């Protein structure tokens, strides 16, 4: 766009007039370069959402690239306005009119070409970034087309490149996580192994929620009766928070719980431990068979009891007593 300004200034200047276009260009170039360098080298490593997973890294990279692309545009427009109100403000008492310029075809064409180029660049960049790391962590609906590489099987063991499947069940106002590869046990805390492709199946029991694991770079709406798939792969150990990101009723603001990234072997021992405990408590047999969407209404049809505690059905499953699901 700076070229547009040069054309404008060299177009029809009076000889005494300073070369506004060049002045603007030089100021813009210096400021934009400085801003971009600061953004890339100082700000980028600290940008949200951090680097806890490959998606988060990808989003951080995206936000940084967008910031680097946006800063010159913002600086150009602001600089232009500041420059013009300093240089071309009317002196007090000056009632004369400005130069009668109705337009300038070259400037207009350059502007259109410039903005179109920026837009196409952003589109191509965004699409590449969306496709490459397994759909960028967004919910892809029931039939995802961009997935993470990993072996899918009915069991999961550390060491290989098995995809861990986790069903995320939203309900007012709790998150429950179900691990179908471990007998389908349920947990109210999300444990995930490090460096493992994870496939979330997000669904809801009542209204629309949204599963947002900010540090993992995952966000997928939980729609009742719909399986919404999202991928991530954690690259660092540590805790993270899961929040509901879609207004779901009065306690929406309090609908959050936490998760942990642990080593694959620690995850395996935790998961099989919980599995055998829930097996022993009889919870696993009470659960409905694993399905991609979660429908509690099938339980009475299976001849099983829905557990209520103080008249309230508790937990995502509706099927177990106060000791379950496991809250470590």
């Amino acid at each position: 766009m700076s070229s547009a300004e040069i054309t404008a200034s060299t177009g029809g200047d009076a000889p005494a007039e300073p070369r506004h276009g060049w002045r603007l260009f030089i100021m813009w170039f210096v400021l934009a370069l400085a801003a971009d360098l600061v953004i890339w080298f100082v700000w980028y490593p600290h940008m949200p959402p951090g680097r806890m997973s490959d998606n988060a890294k990808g989003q951080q990279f995206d936000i940084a690239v967008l910031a680097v692309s946006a800063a010159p545009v913002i600086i150009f427009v602001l600089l232009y306005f500041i420059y013009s109100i300093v240089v071309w403000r009317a002196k007090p008492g000056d009632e004369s009119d400005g130069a009668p310029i109705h337009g300038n075809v070259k400037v207009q064409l350059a502007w259109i070409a410039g903005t179109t180029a920026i837009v196409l660049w952003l589109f191509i960049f965004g699409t590449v970034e969306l496709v490459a790391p397994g759909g960028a962590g967004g919910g892809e609906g029931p039939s995802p087309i961009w997935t993470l590489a990993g072996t899918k099987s009915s069991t999961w063991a550390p060491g290989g490149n098995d995809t861990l499947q986790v069903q995320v069940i939203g309900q007012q106002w709790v998150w429950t996580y179900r691990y179908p590869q471990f007998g389908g046990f349920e947990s109210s805390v999300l444990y995930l192994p490090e460096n493992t492709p994870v496939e979330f199946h997000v669904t809801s029991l009542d209204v629309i929620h949204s599963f947002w694991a900010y540090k993992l770079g995952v966000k997928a709406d939980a729609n009742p009766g719909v399986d919404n798939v999202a991928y991530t792969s954690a690259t660092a150990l540590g805790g993270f928070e899961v929040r509901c990101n879609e207004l779901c009723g009065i306690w929406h603001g309090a609908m959050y719980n936490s998760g942990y990234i642990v080593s694959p072997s620690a995850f395996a021992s935790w998961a099989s431990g919980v599995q055998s405990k829930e097996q022993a408590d009889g919870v696993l047999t009470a659960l409905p068979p694993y399905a991609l969407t979660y429908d509690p209404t099938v339980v009475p049809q299976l001849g099983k009891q829905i557990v209520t505690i103080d008249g309230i059905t508790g937990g995502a499953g509706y099927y177990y007593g106060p000791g379950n699901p496991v809250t470590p």
Partner: protein
Amino acid sequence: MAIETQPERAEPVGRGPEVAGAGRPWWLRPGVVTGLVGAVIGYFLGHWLGNLLGGDYARSALADTNDVAIVLGYAFGVIGWLAGLGVFNDLFGLMLGRPLPEEPRLLGREEPGVGKYFRYTLDHKVVGIQYLYGMIAYFLTGGLFAMAIRSELLSPTYHLIGPEQYLMVVGEHGTMMMMMMSSVILGPFGQYFGPLLIGSKRVAFPRLEALGFWLTPAAYVILLSAVLMGGFPTGWTGYEPLATQATQGEDAYFFAFGLMGISMILAGFNMIVTVITYRAPGMRWSRLPMFVWSMFTVSFLQVLAVPVLVGACFMALADRTFQTAFFANQLGGSSFLYEDLFWFFGHPEVYILALPGFGVISEVVSVFCRKPLFGYKVAAAGMLGVGILSFFVWQHHLFDSGINPDMRPLFMLTTELISIPTGFIYLVGMGTFWKARIKFSIPMLFALAFYFNFLLGGISGVFLSDVPADVTEHGSFFVMAHFHYTIMGGLIFAFMAGIYYWLPKMTGIKLNERLGKIHFWTMFIFFNSTFLPLFALGMAGMPRRVFEYARNLQTLNDWVSISAFLLGGSILIFLINFVMSMLFWREPEVGNPWRARSLEWQLSSPPPPENFKRVPVILSDPYEYGVPGALPVAELNPPLGVIAGAYAPASGGVEG
């Protein structure tokens, strides 16, 4: 379109009575008082009918939780309100073969007093002023709810209002602002100046126009009545199935939004026909003021997009009352259907909010730069381009919702494409500033602030359009900051520019300049100090519409809250200025204080009752500042019966 639509009359021909019911005492004449009586009667009639019809299958008739009774109460209440206002009088009069009452203003007579503002008046200038006061009232109400939200967010846990009240306040604030403020410029300035700027004595459908206004107080009261029923928990989007689960406040939400939708459709329809058919001779499309272009485009958006909203509201009310299942996943409906319908309206809606701002700013910038608008055709193309593209972007609100994943690159592209025509608006503004004689009047200050705010709002929109970045930003405070920058920072700043620019024309009174400058600077500083940190809050992972947030975000939230209160104080300064200037100081401003060329400023302030004694003949562009030998914008007193092509020079004296 060079046909004179108003036959010139030598002398007025009296037909019917001038004001309906003029012989009766004031409280029996059709007006607000009789309207209120009709509304109350209608509400109770509808409520009774609803309990009669739906008492056995809706919740509990005795506890007043019967949705059927409440919805029918609203419906009959609105009909009673309109009947009491006298909306149907002319219709029934025509059916009975009575002559229609003549509009006194078209005979050149002004109705004295303020009574005309409280009646179903057919004068577009009266409707404009009615809208102005209405919109200020609606805006202040929405703003008070915002103050309540920010008070609650002073602390990371809930402390002031409970979670249910918090959601009520959030929903009321969001809905009040999004639905009522859609008319904040189209209402006051569009209705008032639309006909004046195109050289017309009237609008095409004055009854539809007045009806459009009188639906807004009804929608406002109905929306507020949700407070009496505990509010609605869905925010301004009303997502299903939460909306079906919600209590009776949700009925108020859907009914009010649908009603305001009808008002928007009527206003848009009237504006389209007026602009197409009522332009004065010589007012070619290439001379149409940019503000009229923006009104014209917005009207198309309203007429084409808002019916989808009205349909969605109707279906949602049907789900809630007579137990249909359009949006219930378990019963064969789809909650995605509601999301799609809502955003198919909702995205054009945000341009219904943004485009009028572009229009006002384009007018203001040209006048105070003392230069022709740079790239007139580019500006018009920008508005049309934004308007057309706005129909093709709605699924960017649903990137993470589980739509078909291959839709996402497509909607990313369309969303990013819309920044090209939006960029045109900046090109026009920046080109106009080139070698200008910039005067820092208050409207110009607001225009400059508009460019600043809308720039940040627009660029943050590009971050949201990028799907991977949107996974972090979607539904967070980042989005909130984005649309407050475009709507509050764009639309409301443009509205303020419009008030300072046009109020002398509308009332003959100017606002105090010192207070105006204080108002501008406080509003600009505290607006940015309120909403800029919200980008950071969203990036740090704070979702929208929560009353609990991470403790480490408290400092920033407190900063935002205090700035928001100061921003409220700035609006208070405006209010003081407005009330004192209009009621007590009354500094007259009758001439053309801005030395503006456009048509409305060639008239007296306020304009004569019938706008133009004769239909004017437009001679040149409204933006020909500094053009040597430019003709005046119009011949206000052309010889009788003149036709455009025969009178105006072919080129209008300048390149078009």
